[in-house]
């Protein structure tokens, strides 16, 4: 995974409400995207057999000169294996897989009209950062040196962790004290280090005001993310969102429990008010993570990349998938995405962890599970018609009113138990 050495993470959220688009059967009104969690790092992984493509989103916002990224990699990467990716891929994949609210309207209980539906979407992007350097050896071997886009990259191998720490410091990388202890396990496993910093000249030439995501590919049986290294300079819990695109099925952890978030329950309709769903999702995730003692991996989304229901955003097009590193889908030449099953499964994992609760790096495996899952929450609006429309079926109308009151109480209780919010407060807000 990524370590933004000497960096603080933050994400900026720019929410824009897109024009409504109709979706099958449900009505999408809002979502809780990754920008909600401001300590969240985002990684996109494509895994096909032993081939891995890793893209790391930079939400680094400090001085470009202070930016450095150190990632242990299993092999020495060639220049062709490294590129800068379009940040839009993250925005798209985040939007597509975000936790979502689906809205339904009751039909007139006295006749059998079907649901109506409408849609709304918003999306969010993050931001920028940069660097500089020197050169000298110290038990450290510079395996390769490249400039890719706005980044200067060196691939290092090392025999001693303090040697590597010294080398990095001497070469002007601002790495936190105590890094050598965290680096040692990777050196002992004979892993190489992908080290990147910003080339200011190239950055100026590129014309981008933010740091684009770095993407590299390699072949290795190791299917894991070195999350431990990212914790060197972390205080308190950290969030990591991992998107994995694979061929066969859902991806899960091999050494931590992988748990689906509670989802698909009906919740009070006031969550539709601006900002309420985001507040709910944060509180809910926070409570679930604490209940599991910050030691599990949550699944937020698993879906065949060909479709969605309801759609928080359209599935990624073939071009976008290829930008993400998926090599096994053929471009149909039209540039448009088509709905329908595709041999690409997206798994979105969300982890909140600390040094203590994740003592080992995150091991992953692809399962043969093709079952879809989404963190989807349902709002059901009661029928707001007048009793006069029901004069010939007054009994039906009364039964309906009782059932609405019951289900609203259930929804309030579900919300209370998911978030830990006060039930009386929820009932009050639901009445307003």
């Amino acid at each position, binding site marked *: 995974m990524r370590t933004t050495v000497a960096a603080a993470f933050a994400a900026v959220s720019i929410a824009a409400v897109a024009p409504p688009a109709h979706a099958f059967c449900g009505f999408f009104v809002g979502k809780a995207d990754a920008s909600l969690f401001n300590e969240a790092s985002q990684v996109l992984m494509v895994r096909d057999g032993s081939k891995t493509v890793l893209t790391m989103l930079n939400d680094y916002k400090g001085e470009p000169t202070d930016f450095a990224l150190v990632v242990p990699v299993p092999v020495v990467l060639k220049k062709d294996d490294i590129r800068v990716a379009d940040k839009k891929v993250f925005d798209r994949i985040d939007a597509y897989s975000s936790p979502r609210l689906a809205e339904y309207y009751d039909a007139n209980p006295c006749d059998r009209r079907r649901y109506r539906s409408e849609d709304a979407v918003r999306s969010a992007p993050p931001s920028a950062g940069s660097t500089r350097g020197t050169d000298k050896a110290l038990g450290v071997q510079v395996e390769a040196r490249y400039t890719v886009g706005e980044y200067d990259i060196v691939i290092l191998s090392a025999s001693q962790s303090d040697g590597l720490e010294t080398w990095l410091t001497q070469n002007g990388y601002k790495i936190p004290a105590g890094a050598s202890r965290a680096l*040692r396990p990777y050196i*002992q496993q004979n892993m190489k280090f992908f080290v990147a910093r910003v080339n200011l000249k190239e950055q100026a030439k590129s014309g981008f005001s933010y740091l684009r995501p770095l993407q590299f590919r390699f072949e290795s049986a190791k299917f894991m993310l070195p999350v431990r290294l990212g914790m060197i300079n972390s205080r308190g819990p950290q969030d990591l969102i991992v998107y994995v695109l694979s061929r066969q099925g859902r991806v899960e952890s091999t050494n931590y429990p992988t748990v*689906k978030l509670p989802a698909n329950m009906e919740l009070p309709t006031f969550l539709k008010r601006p900002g309420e769903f985001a507040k709910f999702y944060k509180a809910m995730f926070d409570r679930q993570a604490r209940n599991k003692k910050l030691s599990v991996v949550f699944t937020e989304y698993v879906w065949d990349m060909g479709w969605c229901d309801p759609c928080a955003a359209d599935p990624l097009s073939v071009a976008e998938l290829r930008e993400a590193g998926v090599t096994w889908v053929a471009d149909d030449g039209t540039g448009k995405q088509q709905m329908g099953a595709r041999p690409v499964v997206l798994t979105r994992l969300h982890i909140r962890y600390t040094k203590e609760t994740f003592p080992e790096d995150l091991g992953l495996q692809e399962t043969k599970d093709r079952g879809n899952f989404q963190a989807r929450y349902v709002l059901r609006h009661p029928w707001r018609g007048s009793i006069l429309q029901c004069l010939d079926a007054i009994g039906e109308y009364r039964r309906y009113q009782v059932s609405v009151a019951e289900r609203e109480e259930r929804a309030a209780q579900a919300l209370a138990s998911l978030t830990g919010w006060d039930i009386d407060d929820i009932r009050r807000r639901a009445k307003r």
Partner: protein
Amino acid sequence: MLDSPQARATATARAAGTLSPPLAATGQAGRQEAGASALRRLAGAVIAPLRRIDARLFQIVFLGTLLLFGALVRDFALEWEQVALTFAAGLATQAFWIGALDLKRVGYLSAVVTCLGTSILVRADSDWVHPLLAALAMSSKFVIRIRGKHLYNPANLAVMLAIIAVPGAWASPGQWGSDVLIGLWFVALGVTVTTSARRLDIAWAFLACYAGLLAGRMLILGQGEAVLIHQLGSGVLLLFTFFMISDPMTTPNRRSMRFLYAAMVAVLAFAWQYLLFKPHGLIWALFILTPLVPLIDWLLPGSKHAWKPPAKP
């Protein structure tokens, strides 16, 4: 010990000169021995009847508890229909083979153990996978036999088939979490089971080798002991140790060979997982090395295990 009523009574008796000289001469040692033998008698009274019970009954209680715990407390992603179908298929297969081969002395306990193991270890996105695996695993006991012993541990075979062959099936080794307390609880109960199965040796030999390798790796990599605790806290490791590799029917009959076999499985499992970076090291290692068991039994024979202790003459 001296504070125990019995010890005080002995001391008083000696002071009063009522004890016979030899016993009085042995003093403290004698009292300790008396206390120890009382303890032994007590333990004997508790354990002996337990030992006469078929070990598989313990296994069933233990695995059943585990299944309930997993399903209720640790979201195991297992449907009750899958469990029900596993049992239906597993028991029906056992009944079929008992009938077809006209076996008089074969019951259903092993089938129940296999069904529980399969339910705990295998995950599937449909309802037909579990019963299929249970039926195949049970059949393997009657079909794949060498020198009067079945070759594969049925649960091991079921998980293997799930990993490599059956569509929509997988195993989730991380699904257990690593609560050390729970791990210890597993061990405690597991010990009971294997003790009465009289094959405690292979479980401990395996665990010692495997834990040793993990500890060595931790030291070489310079990681903290939290890593080791996390790895040892794996529910799959404990289940494997006490219910799979300790299966007396699919391990060598001779004791020394069992130790050797346990060490080989530990080394291969470790290498699979931490040198080749492939998942399910334990399951693979046992599966790959199982064919050695009949070879070992042929070269260095020992007495075959019987589930039910011989009846008293």
